[in-house]
């Protein structure tokens, strides 16, 4: 019976209902898209790290899990590391961040080949000249690049020599020494990948190295990729926190407005309900159920919208932003929408309960 009244009420003001649902949907989409992009980016970073084929990653002190902003390690270190027991091979790279999540990587293709068999080229071939650049298929697709094109990055015109299959190490690669010189870091490295003679010994080698190279961040590849989660990337975590905060406020305001006008408009109905014996609890129950329904509809619609933003990103910016569908966050985002909405319904609810019945009944 109550539900009948709630549906009747919501249907009575279809535009208001629709707008409320839409606003809550946008709120949910906002959260899910951000989370999806965060997961997508982190997973891709992890996948590329795994694709390197190394067992251990060796990074300078004080670097964060995603992104390297400097190249503080000497390129003498790989040779040093190769003398450690069980280390079969070490390859140093230099990473220069570009805008957004993009970065350009300097590497030695021969070393890279020794590590994992090298890139698989879909078009063109490896780096030959100093101003050659190679990119992965997604970056090429997004920037509509073809072999032979000129690409300007880091204030330098490069010639696109090849397009490789993505998923290994990086998206944009140039020769190591060229990047080092171009960025004023000659002889410096950002990270070093190690291969051990027996992968099952990786952890033991890491433990030994940690004692010897104090302060450096040394992980097995497995450890490193597990670090690539939202919680371990402080900046992402607080960013998501802020967006959730904004979303809750938006949901709160929208529902506050919708329910407040609904209560004002229904002064008489609420008075009638009280006059026929409805308790304050029942009045609140009706209002909160109505709110809950708005929030649930909004959340469902918001989830559907998320597929829309996903589609948009896949087609507009396939290389820089990858949005995953994070099912685990569906209930979380829905919960956030519900909390915001119910908070918004509190003040109107109190107003409804406090309203004088006879005054309400006088209206006509």
């Amino acid at each position, binding site marked *: 019976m109550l539900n009948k009244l709630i549906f009747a009420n919501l249907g009575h003001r279809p535009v208001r209902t629709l707008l409320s649902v839409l606003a809550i949907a946008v709120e949910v989409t906002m959260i899910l898209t951000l989370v999806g992009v965060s997961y997508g980016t982190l997973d891709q970073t992890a996948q590329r790290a795994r694709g390197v084929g190394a067992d251990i990653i060796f990074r300078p002190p004080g670097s964060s899990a995603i992104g390297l902003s400097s190249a503080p390690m000497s390129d003498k270190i790989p040779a040093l590391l190769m003398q450690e027991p069980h280390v079969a091979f070490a390859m140093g790279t230099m990473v220069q961040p570009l805008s957004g999540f993009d970065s350009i990587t300097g590497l030695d293709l021969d070393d890279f080949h020794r590590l994992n068999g090298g890139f698989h080229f879909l078009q063109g071939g490896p780096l030959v000249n100093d101003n050659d650049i190679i990119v992965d298929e997604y970056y090429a697709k997004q920037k509509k690049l073809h072999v032979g094109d000129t690409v300007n990055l880091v204030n330098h015109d490069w010639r696109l020599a090849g397009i490789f299959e993505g998923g290994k190490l990086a998206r944009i690669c140039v020769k190591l020494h060229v990047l080092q010189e171009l960025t004023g870091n000659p002889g410096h490295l950002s990270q070093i990948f190690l291969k051990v003679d027996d992968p099952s010994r990786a952890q033991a080698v890491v433990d030994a190295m940690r004692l010897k190279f104090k302060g450096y961040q040394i992980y097995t590849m497995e450890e490193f990729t597990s670090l690539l989660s939202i919680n371990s990337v402080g900046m992402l975590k607080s960013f998501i926190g802020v967006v959730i905060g904004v979303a809750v406020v938006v949901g709160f305001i929208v529902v506050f407005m919708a329910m407040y006008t609904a209560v004002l408009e229904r002064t008489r109905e609420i008075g009638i309900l009280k006059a026929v*014996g409805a308790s304050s609890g029942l009045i609140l129950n009706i209002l909160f159920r109505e709110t809950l329904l708005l929030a649930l509809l909004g959340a469902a619609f918001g989830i559907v919208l998320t597929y829309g933003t996903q589609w948009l990103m896949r087609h507009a910016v396939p290389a820089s932003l990858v949005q995953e569908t994070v099912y685990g966050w569906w209930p979380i985002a829905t919960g956030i929408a519900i909390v915001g909405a119910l908070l918004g319904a509190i003040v109107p609810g109190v107003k409804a309960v406090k309203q004088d019945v006879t005054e309400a009944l006088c209206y006509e």
Partner: protein
Amino acid sequence: MSEPAIIEVNGLTKTYQVGDVEVHALRGVDLQVRKGEFVAIIGASGSGKSTLFHILGGLTPTTSGSVRINGRDLAGMTNTERTDLRKTTVGFVFQKYNLLPTLSAEDNIRMVQYIGGRHTEFDASFQEILKLLGIADRMKHKPRALSGGQQQRVAIARGIVNSPAILLADEPTGNLDSENSAAVLKLMKDLNQRLGQTILMITHDADAASYADRIVRMRDGRIV
């Protein structure tokens, strides 16, 4: 006195504060209604009849004086107890029908049933009442699609569906033609005689008042 008083009002006053102006709606009302009585209240517009009803139903607080329903003092009741009073003891038929506009006639009645804690279908005798009131075939309509008189009769059906001990009917025949008026009044008389339903009915119509056992006249917030 064969039956105890179900309503006892002593020295009741009610003053509305409208801005700086005090409106004395009730100026000392004494009234006793026995269980099973059918009382008509007549009086000029503004004499405080509706105000008295709202106080009896616990919808409006009193200014002074005492009101006892079933021996219990209204002033001593909590909000919850007053809500329960309306749920179980006092049924209203409002002067302005006051149906929920988004619900059909049937659902308006069912809503009151639901609030009263009943979830059954309308029983045969209630179906009969709907027929008597001439609204049995209008049940699926929203109030908007009903005439004033039909809405009034739906409001009457709603007021009695939970069989409250006391029925407070504020001009139940105010919008009805003589034929429907007669049907409503006969129904109330029947409920009163057959089931011992206590009824207070406000009316401007002497004819309608003649159905009652007793007529109470109000003037300027007093019973005369």
